[in-house]
């Protein structure tokens, strides 16, 4: 039986020759079904690069990265594109399309679903928006919503397709304490309810308590001592 994320000896280098910069070195990480893993570490430690490799947003250079049962090393662009449709993404600054309403942004996530007609798309978008407590803001454009509401729409867009894996990059970075806590409660609640694997990259130590595991990274490696912390890791912050 495979796990949603299985990366082993994963390495990645930007540039080549004298300007080459190794951002990931021999990284091993696994995320199990229904598990929430938080990836933390200082800026430049390789967290986001690791997330983009797992999200099939970049081609794997060295090592192995198996996501949702598909080996990404040597995979084609078309295969990675198809795989991304099974992954939910929550970006740091929500990345909503500013010319679409909240409902249309969420429904966009379903346009790949050939079995889903226009009415079903809208109905599912409305349902998920209501689940993230945005029942009344669904016909507003992103610029008419608060930061917390935008992030809720982004979460709704990520989850509307019932993904098997949710990847979130600093989902609380642009939010105040309360909004951040609400967003994390939302992610953890929905994730646990649906049993999906969640990998969150964050600097925000306030949200570490939602994780089943906290993985610390430094200089492109998963630290040997800090490798994996147990839940409630906010009391034992990575010594990086």
């Amino acid at each position, binding site marked *: 039986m495979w796990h949603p994320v299985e990366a082993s000896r994963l390495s990645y280098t930007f540039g080549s020759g004298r300007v080459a910069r190794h951002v990931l070195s021999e990284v091993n990480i696994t995320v199990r079904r229904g598990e929430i893993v938080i990836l933390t570490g200082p800026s430049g430690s390789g967290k986001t690069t690791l997330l983009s490799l797992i999200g099939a*947003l970049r081609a794997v250079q060295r090592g192995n990265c198996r996501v949702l049962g598909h080996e990404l090393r040597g995979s084609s662009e078309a295969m990675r594109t198809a795989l991304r449709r099974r992954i939910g993404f929550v970006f740091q600054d929500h990345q909503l399309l500013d*010319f679409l309403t909240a409902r249309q942004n969420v429904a*966009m996530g379903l346009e790949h679903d050939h079995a889903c007609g226009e009415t079903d798309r809208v109905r599912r978008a409305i349902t998920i928006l209501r689940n993230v407590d945005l029942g009344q803001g669904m016909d507003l454009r992103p610029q008419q919503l608060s930061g917390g509401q935008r992030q809720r729409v982004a979460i709704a*867009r990520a989850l509307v397709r019932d993904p098997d894996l949710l990847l979130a990059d600093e989902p609380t970075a642009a939010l105040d304490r309360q909004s951040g806590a609400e967003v994390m409660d939302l992610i953890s609640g929905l994730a646990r309810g649906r049993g999906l694997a969640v990998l969150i990259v964050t600097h925000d130590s306030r949200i570490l308590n939602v994780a089943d595991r906290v993985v610390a990274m430094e200089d492109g490696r998963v630290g040997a001592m800090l490798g994996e912390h147990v839940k409630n890791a906010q009391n034992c912050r990575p010594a990086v």
Partner: protein
Amino acid sequence: MTTVARARPDRIRVSFSDGQDRSLGALWPVPRPLLPVRLAWRQLRAERARLVAAVAGVMFATLLVLMQLGFRAALFQTAVALPQAIQGQLFLINPLTEALFRYEPVPRIRAYQALAVPGVIAAVPIYLAQESWRNPLTGTHRVIQLIGFDVKANAIAMPGLARLTDLLTQRDTVAFDSLSRPEFGPIPELLAQDGRLKAEIADREVTVVGTVKLGTTFDADGNVVMSQTTFQRLVPGNPESDVALVALRLKDGADVAEVRKRLQALLPPDVLVLTHPALLQRETRYWDKETPIGVIFDFCSVMALMVGMVIVYQILFTDVSNHLRGYATLKALGFSHGYLQRVVLAEACILACLGYVPGQVAAAWLYRYVGQAARLPLELTSGRCSAVFALVVAMCVAAALLTLRKLREADPASVF
């Protein structure tokens, strides 16, 4: 408690937790291939000012191209108005004649020789000249085209000519072309008052006995029609033996090609025997190929399309640049590069349609206005509209294809 219920097959009503019950409006089923078109439209609609600028650019290009092609077609149409009206199956012209307005003379004797060929039943010499016409009201002079021929031979089909043939056989009588430019004077109105009008051509007094309809051309602002005898009196420098062309009428059922072959074999090489279509084609070809006019209109049409393409390219390029992060997000969400290409191409096609419609409406108004002012037969034909629409779509698609390079910069990895 909130519920989502489907009230009608194409409508969703949403019951909100605050008790309000709202309909989301009609939800039309969108075929899968049209989903990029819908996204393109939503994107365009969000930036109203930019959309208006783009539509104005396409409309401008459409208007320019339609006007250029309209003028071009009017030129050719007016250029052949006279030869088109001449009745005959075959025509004798001088081989050196490139266009009738600057003809090389044909010896009139060739008309008599042609009558010797079996199948030819009539040969009508037609004389052309340009002389000065004096406006009877203002006294100003303007060059007018004189058309002289045997008015009883029914050689030229012109509305109004048939009822004037007896009057025109009298010496120094002419029929005025009522479609001539107004600078020649309000001749139809003056005729309506008195029935006859004294006028002056080449410093000789003539009597205008009525009006016919032929139309202006690029080389003639107006026309007067008269008998051969009157023509010789008004243009004494033109020998009677020198004619512009000879119209030949053939017996019913005669083989035109065969008669033409015989005529060409019989007559000396100082005449060319042409069928009616060949005569019209020769006249059109002169304006199209042997004067800069055809090239100028073609060039202006191409320039208009180029300007339109640059405008659309600028708009699309700015649009793609501004939405690059959005496109990268869509790629991250699993949308293919091809899908995004279709969005940009759909934007181009939408702009083409939105810009073409007002462009055609404006062109239709200008055709009428300019056509009346310039006395040109500007006609917005469905064929020309279809051709210009295809050109405008091609122009927008070409601009979109250039923009697609920018789309490659949308990197899904950049959104993390």
